[in-house]
């Protein structure tokens, strides 16, 4: 990966073990301010674990994580530090159904975040900002005061984005954020994300297994396989001319018009020679 000047997020030598299982090993990457990085890999490759360590949900076994030049490898001490970290990195999850409190109307959920990060704002100031944020993610006023159960999956995901943006974070982690949506809704939310990035200059870290989404949303990519980074570079280069066997396999597995399963099988066989079936017990 080319040297990144002015990195907003910098991860060096990250490692995470759960008991004897090594989930993540020697993961290093950096994202420039306003840039975008995709972490690609199949289920169990460790990409979500990396995201969890960046947001502070998991503590790294080794390695350092720096956001906006400040270390966040160790758990936050005290409320002020927690909130400061909240203004550095935010996350939008995959499942739009469980990522909102079912008892909290949309505007109150966003207001709660504003109260947290802008204690000096008056109630009318916050209300104005809530309306602005709701509009920013393409929801109308009625949807803005609705309970989550009245909203569709795509609308809920828009709310989750608005709530994350309420903290005005430097980095937004999108953990499979559009994966659970219908294709047409997915396209709308993707467009919203592209649009927001242009307007706000926010940095995206996209965790995904969907190469089409990765291509649309990011400029750089790292490919993870079994806990380590096996390939990295500009998104176009990596996706158009993958160097690593695993990346080739991943690309060949994407269903496209004229998709040739036999080719996928050949690609798999190239890297993973078929062993004759021998009973293991």
């Amino acid at each position, binding site marked *: 990966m080319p040297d990144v000047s002015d990195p907003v997020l910098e991860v060096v030598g990250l490692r995470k073990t759960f008991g004897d299982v090594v989930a993540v090993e020697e993961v290093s990457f950096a994202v420039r301010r306003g840039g975008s990085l995709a972490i690609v890999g199949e*289920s169990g490759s460790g990409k979500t674990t990396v995201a969890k360590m960046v*947001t*502070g*949900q998991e503590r790294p076994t080794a390695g350092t994580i720096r956001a906006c030049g400040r270390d966040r490898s160790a758990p*936050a001490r005290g*409320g002020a530090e*927690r*909130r*400061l*970290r*909240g*203004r550095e*990195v*935010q*996350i939008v*999850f*995959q*499942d*739009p*159904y*469980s*990522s*909102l*409190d*079912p*008892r*909290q109307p949309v505007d109150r959920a966003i207001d*709660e*975040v504003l109260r*947290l*990060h802008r204690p000096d704002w008056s109630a009318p100031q916050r209300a104005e900002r809530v309306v602005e944020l709701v509009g920013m993610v393409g929801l109308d006023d009625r949807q803005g005061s609705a309970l989550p*159960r*009245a909203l569709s*999956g795509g609308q809920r995901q828009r709310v*989750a984005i608005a*709530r*994350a943006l309420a*903290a005005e974070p430097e980095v937004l982690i999108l953990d*499979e954020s559009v*994966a*659970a*949506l*219908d294709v047409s809704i997915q396209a709308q939310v993707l467009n919203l994300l592209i649009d927001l990035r242009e307007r706000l200059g926010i940095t995206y870290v996209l965790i995904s*297994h*969907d190469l089409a989404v990765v291509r649309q949303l990011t400029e750089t990519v790292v490919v993870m396989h079994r806990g380590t980074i096996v390939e990295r570079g500009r998104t176009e280069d990596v996706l158009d001319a993958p160097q690593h066997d695993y990346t080739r396999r991943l690309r060949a597995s994407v269903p496209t018009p004229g998709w040739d399963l036999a080719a996928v099988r050949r690609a798999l066989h190239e890297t993973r020679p078929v062993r004759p079936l021998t009973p293991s017990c």
Partner: protein
Amino acid sequence: MSAVAAPVAGTRPVRGRRRTGLGATGWVSAAVVGLATLVAVVGPLVAPHDPNQADLVQAWIGPGGDHLVGLDVQGRDVLSRILAGARSSMLGPLLIVVICMLVGSLLGLVSAWRGGMVDAGVSAGLDILFAFPGVLLAALTAAVFGAGLWAAVLAMAVAYTPFVARLLRGAMLKERNQPYITALEVQGLGATAICLRHVLPNVFPFMVAQGSILFGYAVLDLAVISYLGIGVQPPDPDWGVMISENQSGILLGYPLPALCAGACIVAVVVAMNLLGERLLERAGKDGGR
């Protein structure tokens, strides 16, 4: 991972039409519970006779005249004793449920939130408490503090708390692992605020439902304790005490006084259980995402 999640999300039932009713059974149960509560509040005031006024000459006289349900073993008015006895028979279980829910939700919340060693420690403590049957604890507290309603309430609260704490720990752990809680943590909201503003309100319907079922058990257990003579002390009116006092009547051919008290207990227990189950169903429907 998400290839599996997508169809699951798509097949979720439409949540527009929500059944908020309790159903006929639920409403009848609620009515019975309401009536019992009303009697517990105003019972002693509306009792036609002094519930403790005994007249041994009139023992075991059947219904009629001035005494709608007859007189008991000591010639006291059964109806008045049922009405007056509702207070201790309902207040005791209420106190038990409230104490259990307060202590149980605190323990459950702390274990679910902190996990690890804290969770293991609390669970171990609860396991030890689990080993003591409620009635044994009641005998113990009666021996230490003297027999009475308060000793029995304390004993049952201690006996039920591990059960409640474990139930609530499960419910709170489920809530704690919801992504919306994680999102609030990433925002930087403190644990206390998250628990008070989000976890507890979302688990509350479940608590009410479980509390209702627990109330039924508590009515029954307190009646047993009173029956055994280590709870409410005669001559104070109490449904459990009434069964104990009048059980000889069943053999002598005057079963009405004991049966009346028994019927009250059964009615409240069954109603509380049915109501609790309906509420639980609703809480599941409501909270289930």
